[in-house]
């Protein structure tokens, strides 16, 4: 039942601490190579059955080249990147993102694999502010998703709290 999509931790990740992070630090990137199977899975898991995301003919009537990746799936990838990075003792407090460009999935080659990896998307981020708020040790971050051309079609912001070594 585990998806063939790349990324995702498998437990026992090393914990990062607030003291070790500086403004300007990069968030560990997370790469995804979405295929049409991933979109069908997301449709079922989220309940978004808009045919724009799985039916080629319909997508073309909507002036797309074909089915497009769900915005909310891209949002979920950005949250995954953040959760993987802050570790189990970190907290995601605030998250926002905007979708400004369409992304297309690869088509399937067989039951599990897609035909190519010509549409990789890389989730990225950077720490913009390090501060203490009440009893929380916070970081503000810019987050975004880059396509193969280096364009950022999805952009957002997040606030996380990290543990201290104490």
């Amino acid at each position, binding site marked *: 039942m585990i998806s063939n999509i*790349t990324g995702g931790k*498998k437990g026992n990740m090393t914990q990062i601490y607030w003291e070790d992070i500086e403004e300007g630090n990069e968030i560990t990137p997370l790469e995804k190579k979405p295929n049409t199977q991933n979109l069908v899975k*997301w449709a079922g898991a989220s309940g978004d059955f808009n045919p724009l995301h799985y039916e080629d003919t319909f997508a073309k009537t909507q002036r797309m080249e074909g089915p497009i990746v769900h915005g909310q799936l891209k*949002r*979920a990838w950005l949250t995954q990147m953040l959760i993987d990075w802050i570790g189990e003792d970190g907290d995601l407090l605030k998250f926002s993102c905007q979708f400004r460009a369409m992304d297309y999935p690869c088509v399937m080659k067989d039951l599990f694999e897609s035909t190519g990896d010509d549409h990789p998307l890389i989730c990225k981020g950077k720490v913009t502010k390090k501060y203490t708020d009440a009893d929380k040790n916070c970081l503000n971050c810019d987050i975004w998703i880059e396509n193969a051309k280096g364009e950022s079609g999805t952009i957002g912001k997040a606030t996380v709290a990290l543990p201290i070594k104490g």
Partner: protein
Amino acid sequence: MLPEKLEKLIGQIGETGMFEVEKGAIKRYADAVGDRNPLYWDDEYARNSRYGAMIAPPGFFGWPTQWKTTMPFFSEFREKLINASMEEGFDKLLDGGSEYDFMQPIRAGDILASMPKIIAIIEREGKSGVMLFSTLETTFINQHGVKVAKYRQTIIHRK
């Protein structure tokens, strides 16, 4: 000037929805994302974590996350806003972004009440004419009466 019909919608509260955050739904969501975090997959691992139980990935408040195509008979509150803006000629809709406040963890088995509210409808002059920015805020409260999250979705309405 914002048309009166739209002005009147600001501050309106929609019907409360109830969502059970099922374990299977969490796994299917994590699978679709391609996320192998054991907190969403492994009961024993999650029990021994600081959460004490399996949790839901941030942004998952139970299935479905979108009503429109799963239960079209369910009168979605957002539709009211969209229909009212369409009647005023704003028939092109764009996703203006999503925003979340995560206050408390959501655990498998939690029952969440979702309470939607139209918190803003703002008129702005854009290059292609007047646009509306509407924001729907949904507050999620768990079975213990604790506010666990807020989700704000902004829609851009154009003519």
